[in-house]
């Protein structure tokens, strides 16, 4: 099924989680190695002059652009605005997606209403809605955030729905026999039982939100934002700025993955043995 990943099959970012007793520097070296290889290949290509230097800057120039724009406060401003939109849009997707997904999993009627809509909506690239949203809600933050929320909610809905369906009947029966009412059944059994899938849905939703946001920032006529910065730099052939923007998106994504999603998982579904690390 589209965009559904069974939680246990999720491949962690770094191949091989830190093994017991493995030295920290070794873990670091293993994680850094592929980046070093790509960086080296890049540097060689840049120095050999295969492409004009203006279009293929060396890492040094990219790093310099990164530092220069950061010190000037321009890059943090762009990143800050993008992050605000990202979190606003993603929050909508998370709340609406989990709510609709759970409703679909628990109620036959909700499933009948939402499933056809979700099935049709999910495969459509979110960016295809961008012109409509901009016409309806005007240029600017409002339309951007709504579109990010809308487009990234599908992955959350589908995974949450799958997760609720995958909640074991025996947990529900056990809880019933112990006197759980509907509200407690929901909070104490359905929600934790579906959590591995919900977390996977949120992770996919976040990736979707990034993809939409960076493109929409170019179209929405906003003044600040990493997407706007990257596309704006194209006009002046500032490839170093473009790459600096791409690097910042990668770094933010890595931080979110390591320090938000993986931590959430370690603290919940991994600790409970519902998901392998």
């Amino acid at each position, binding site marked *: 099924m589209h965009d559904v990943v069974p939680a246990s099959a999720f491949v962690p970012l770094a191949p091989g989680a830190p093994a017991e007793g493995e030295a920290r520097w070794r873990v670091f070296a293993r994680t850094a190695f592929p980046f070093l290889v790509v960086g080296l290949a890049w540097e060689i290509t840049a120095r050999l002059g295969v492409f004009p230097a203006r279009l293929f800057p060396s890492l040094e120039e990219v790093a310099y652009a990164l530092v220069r724009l950061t010190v000037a406060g321009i890059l943090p401003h762009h990143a800050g605005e993008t992050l605000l939109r990202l979190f606003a849009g993603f929050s909508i997707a998370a709340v609406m997606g989990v709510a609709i997904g759970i409703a679909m999993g628990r109620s036959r009627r909700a499933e009948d209403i939402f499933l056809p809509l979700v099935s049709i909506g999910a495969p459509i690239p979110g960016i295809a809605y961008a012109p409509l949203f901009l016409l309806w809600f005007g240029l600017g933050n409002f339309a951007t955030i709504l579109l990010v929320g809308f487009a990234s909610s599908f992955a959350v809905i589908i995974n949450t729905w799958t997760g609720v369906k995958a909640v*074991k009947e*025996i*947990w529900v*029966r*056990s*809880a*019933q*026999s*112990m*006197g*759980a*009412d509907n509200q*407690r059944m929901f909070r*104490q*059994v359905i929600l*934790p*039982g579906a*959590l591995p899938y919900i977390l996977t849905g949120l992770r996919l939703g976040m990736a979707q939100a990034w993809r939409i946001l960076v493109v929409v920032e170019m179209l929405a006529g906003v003044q600040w934002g990493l997407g706007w910065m990257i596309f704006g730099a194209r006009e002046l052939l500032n490839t170093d700025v473009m790459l600096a923007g791409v690097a910042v998106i990668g770094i933010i994504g890595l931080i979110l993955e390591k320090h938000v999603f993986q931590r959430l998982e370690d603290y*919940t579904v991994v*600790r*409970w*043995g*519902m998901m392998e690390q």
Partner: protein
Amino acid sequence: MPHIEIRDISLIYDTPSGSVPGVQGVSFSIEPSEFLCIVGPSGCGKSTLLNIIAGFLTPTGGEIKIGGKIITGHGMDRGVVFQDFAQLFPWRTALGNVAFGLEMKGMGKAEREEIALQQLRLVKLEKFVRSYPHHLSGGMQQRVAIARALAYNPAVLLMDEPFAALDALTRDDMQRLLAEVWRETKKTVIYVTHNVAEAVYLADRVVVMTPHPGTVKIEVPIRLARPRDPLSVEFLDYQKELLRHLGGGAVKA
């Protein structure tokens, strides 16, 4: 007055090829604090019957009275233990699992954890109070499940082949432990099994069921002093008798 009265219970399944009786015209009663085993081969409807008594399935005919009142669904007067180890909530510690029923009753945290701890002591798991189920062995998980079903103090304990998925040695330990727990708590127990030796070891009385359709063939009271010796002649005689009722080699002990 009997604690539980099962009167003329039937459950007919509608299938494309016509209606199939899962359980047909089953009647028997259970005295307070009696340990009753239901024995039969796969497909005789014994688990179906237990699920009806638990209130998870609605019979198509007949009625069940507990303490003189007709039951209409599941209720906290009955605790249920299933065969599947996965019945425990993986997101709760052993203590959290056992305290679940008390939490649903609205009992405060300190009080329910105190009671849950006592229950875990009863099944000899006081050292694993803070462990999550996936760190416990199958036998330990089933002991947590028993403690969980007892914690909110139901009058009746319903058990559906709780030890069938355990290895033979662990199963023997668990049977001894259950006999002890029953002696201490004096619950009324209905225990479903296909294991004849298990039934003779645990039960005051054995109800033998046969399939197609699922009906009660005979009730056999086990008049042996406890604790029982599975190697005694009398014990083996009871096993032979039950096997004979089950139709010779149809079911292995």
